């Protein structure tokens, strides 16, 4: 291991790390609200509803195929449809396709885990279904989503490394380029891994601070009082 070389690698990997951050966080900002909203919607719709079938097909595809296939699907299919967006947009699109697929399940499971008695209590007071969902079910479901969404977030960042296959010059692609140009692999891998780790660890620190603030604000209080 050559510390000087590793230092150089680190500096050269910072801009691609920036791209990894940008593509991951952009995808997250789209996939999380989209996935959770579709999941909540799915929990409300019958299995036979056309929208349910589309949502289910999405989840089925994402869970049943490697992310590599999903990325290529975007990369090769979009141009066939006459669309030729920039690589960055394709990258974000692929990550949204993947992550929203998982977050649909998170949203749906969270809504469905709120006990039926909560629906009935609100209905008995005179709330309609929509107001019940908004006022009582979603706030309770939201706190059940926090943990799984945090977990999905780190999955998403890791998945962004696979975008190297469509030559998006993110962290992993850049690391590959440096190691093959210099024929030095172990140092580059160590630096690359370190940068991913710092990013993911940093995000998870922010996430748990957020989680704590939510719970201090009472939004997470009372969790489990119905689980007993």
């Amino acid at each position: 291991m050559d510390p000087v070389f590793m230092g150089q690698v680190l500096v050269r990997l910072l801009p691609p790390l920036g791209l990894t951050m940008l593509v991951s966080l952009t995808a997250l900002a789209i996939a999380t609200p989209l996935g959770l909203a579709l999941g909540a919607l799915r929990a409300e719709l019958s299995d036979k509803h056309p929208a349910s079938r589309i949502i289910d097909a999405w989840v089925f595809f994402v869970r049943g195929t490697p992310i590599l296939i999903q990325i290529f699907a975007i990369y090769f299919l979009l141009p066939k449809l006459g669309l030729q967006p920039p690589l960055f947009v394709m990258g974000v699109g692929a990550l949204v396709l993947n992550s929203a697929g998982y977050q649909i399940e998170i949203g749906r499971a969270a809504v469905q885990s709120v006990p039926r008695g909560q629906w009935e209590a609100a209905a008995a007071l005179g709330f309609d279904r929509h107001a019940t969902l908004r006022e009582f079910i979603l706030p309770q479901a939201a706190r059940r989503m926090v943990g799984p969404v945090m977990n999905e977030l780190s999955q998403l960042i890791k998945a962004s490394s696979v975008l190297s296959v469509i030559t998006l010059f993110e962290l992993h692609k850049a690391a590959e380029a440096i190691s093959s140009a210099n024929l030095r692999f172990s140092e580059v891998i160590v630096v690359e891994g370190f940068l991913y780790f710092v990013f993911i660890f940093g995000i998870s620190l922010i996430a748990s601070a957020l989680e704590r603030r939510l719970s201090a604000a009472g939004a997470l209080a009372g969790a489990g009082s119905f689980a007993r």
Partner: protein
Amino acid sequence: MTLLAARGLVKRFGSFTALDGVDLDLNRGERLVICGPSGSGKSTLIRCINRLEEPDAGTVVVEGIPTTDRQALRRKVGMVFQQFNLFPNLTARENIAVAPRKLLGLSRAEADARAEALLARVQLAGHADKLPSGLSGGQQQRVAIARALAMEPVLMLFDEPTSALDPEMIREVLDVMVELGQGGMSMIVVTHEMGFARRAADRIAFMDQGRIVAMAPPQQFFDAPPHPRLVRFLDNILGH
């Protein structure tokens, strides 16, 4: 004066008939207790009254409320559940204030004042800021009663309100209900608390296999049970 009139109520779950043609009248201010063996259709009956279950046949008319508008009906008919079903993320005060605020358009201050007054009425002044998880079962059920009362219902339905409670907490809930009845509230109470029935009911109905098979004022109900199956039921429940 008739407050509630149910006619020919039928409710099926698949091929099973849970309610098999029930007629029921309730006068304003009347307190009716319903008892009967498990599975006899007691919950189904009162859930058909506020349309938590949609009956397959029959009608329910609550005076002055168009039965076509479920939400309007439910705002005027309060319900208390066996499992309390308080909103776990809301304080006692918020549990009570939320419906008047969102559905009746009260301001936050007005709704909170209403909640505080009701908490005092169910002997829980001073507990307003607690979450349900910080309250005992008996206290939670009293908050649930207050929550239903906050909509100023013309009729209160109770589905085994003390069955999930430890014995030492049953009394405090029943006391609140007795007082409520004495205050003139029309009530239908599904319960096996026969002491409460004797003390607080105007009439007691006995259900079996989806029908009301006997109905009588307490004294007659206990001293001269008007149906052989009721005799057996009372023997079991009173432990003779």
